[in-house]
C-alpha cells in the first residue's frame, strides 16, 4: 500500500476513471504549474472497482476546473484548505472550452489560420453537444 501525505491547500480530484489521470494532468496544464502533484493510478474503489486520484498542492484559484466538467462530470473535486476538505465542487458542463480539443474538420478555418484558438461552444446541454465556434461541426471523440 502506497502512502501519500495529505495536502495543506489545493485539490483532490477523486473518482477519476481508471487510466485517465495522465490525460487530465495535461488538460489541466498541471505540468506548467510549479506545485506538488501526486497521481495515484488504479486505486481500489468500492464504487468503481478501480479509480485514479490526483492531488494538487496549489493555491485554490490556480486551477481552471471548467475543463473537468467537459472531460467527466462524475469526478469529485474536493477543495482543501488548512488540511481539511472545505468544499466539494459540483462539476457542470462548461459553456465554452478553449484550446483543449481541436476541430477535426479539414474544411474549418482552424486548420490553416495561424495561432487561432480552438473554441468549442456547448450547443445542447441535454445531449452534451459541443460545436466548433467557427465551422459549427459537432465534436465527436475524446479530449486530446
Amino acid at each position: 500500500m502506497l502512502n501519500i501525505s495529505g495536502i495543506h491547500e489545493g485539490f483532490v480530484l477523486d473518482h477519476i476513471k481508471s487510466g485517465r489521470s495522465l490525460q487530465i494532468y495535461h488538460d489541466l496544464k498541471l505540468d506548467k504549474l510549479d506545485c506538488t502533484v501526486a497521481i495515484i493510478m488504479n486505486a481500489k474503489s468500492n464504487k468503481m472497482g478501480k479509480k485514479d486520484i490526483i492531488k494538487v498542492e496549489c493555491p485554490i484559484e490556480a486551477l481552471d476546473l471548467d475543463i473537468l466538467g467537459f472531460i467527466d462530470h462524475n469526478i469529485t473535486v474536493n477543495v482543501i484548505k488548512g488540511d481539511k476538505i472545505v468544499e466539494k465542487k459540483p462539476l457542470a458542463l462548461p459553456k465554452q472550452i478553449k484550446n483543449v480539443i481541436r476541430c477535426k474538420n479539414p474544411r474549418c478555418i482552424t486548420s490553416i489560420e495561424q495561432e487561432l484558438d480552438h473554441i468549442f461552444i456547448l450547443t445542447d446541454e441535454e445531449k452534451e453537444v459541443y460545436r466548433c465556434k467557427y465551422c459549427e461541426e459537432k465534436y465527436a471523440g475524446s479530449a486530446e
Partner: protein
Amino acid sequence: MRHLMSPLDFTVEELQELLLLAQDIEKHPDKYAHACEGKKLATCFYEPSTRTRLSFEAAMLNLGGNVLGFHSANSSSAAKGESVSDTIRVISCYADICAIRHPKEGAALVASQKSKIPVINAGDGGHQHPTQTLTDLLTIYSLKGRLDNMTIGLCGDLKFGRTVHSLINALIRYPNVKFVLISPEELRIPSYIREDVLEANNIEFVELERIEEAIPQLDILYMTRVQRERFFNEEDYVRLKDFYVLNQEKLNRAKPDMMVLHPLPRVNEISVEVDDDPRAAYFKQAQYGVYVRMALILTLLGIDVEKE
C-alpha cells in the same frame, strides 16, 4: 459594430426592417443613389464567385459608393501566407465595409473578430451563405407578399445544398410554413436538419422522390442543381437526373401563382422553355439579390435614408 455571419443573425423583426428597406430601394432607387457616397466596399474573395461578387459591387455602386478588392487567393497576400486576421486588419484601414468569401468554414467569423469595419460573410465553404438566404427571403416576400402560411417545395440536392439548409432554418421562424422535400434517396435532407430543425420545431414536412407528385400543392418551388459527382454510380445518375428537371409539362400541373426559384447558376435542371412562364422568378431573384445587399450595406453602415 455589427457583422453578418449567418442568416439567423437578424431577428424576425430586424429582417422585416431589412426587407422593407430593400423594397423601398426597389421602388425609389434615386433616393438611395448617393447614400454611400465617399464609402468603400472591399470585396475579399479568396475563391472565385462572379455572381456574388458582382452583386455586391453592383449594390455598392448603386448606392454611390466605391469598391475595391481581390478576386482569388492567388491575387491576394494569402498566397504569401498571410492569415485572414492580418488581412482584415489591413483592409480595415482601406475600406468602410467588407464582404468576404473564403473556402474555409468560419473564415468570415475569424475576420469579424479582428475587423474594425462591418464584415459580411459572402460564403464560407459549405457552411453559410447568408446573403443568398436574404435574397431568397426578399424574393418570396416581394412576389408572394408574405413569408408565412405557405407550402415550399425544395427540389434536387438537399443533402449538400447549403442554400436549402439555410432557407429552411430561416423560414421555420414564420408560422404555418410547410415543406415538401423532393430529392433522390441519395440526396435526401441530412438527419440533423430533419431531426434537429424540422422535427424538433414540429414543422410539417413530407419527403417525395418526384416533382410531379409534389408540384400541385406548392406555393414556391425552389430548384437546386443535382450534380453528377454526388452520385455513387453513373447508372443512378442517369436514372434519376430527369426526375429533377423542371419542364413546361411538369409546370403545367402547378398552381397559377406558384413561383419557381433557383439560386443559379442553372445547368439543365430547369428547361429553357420554362423561362418565359410568368411563374419563373429566378432571374428576378438575381435582381432582388442586389436590392437586399444594398439594404444590408446601408444597415451595417448605419446609414439612414427615410423610407416612403
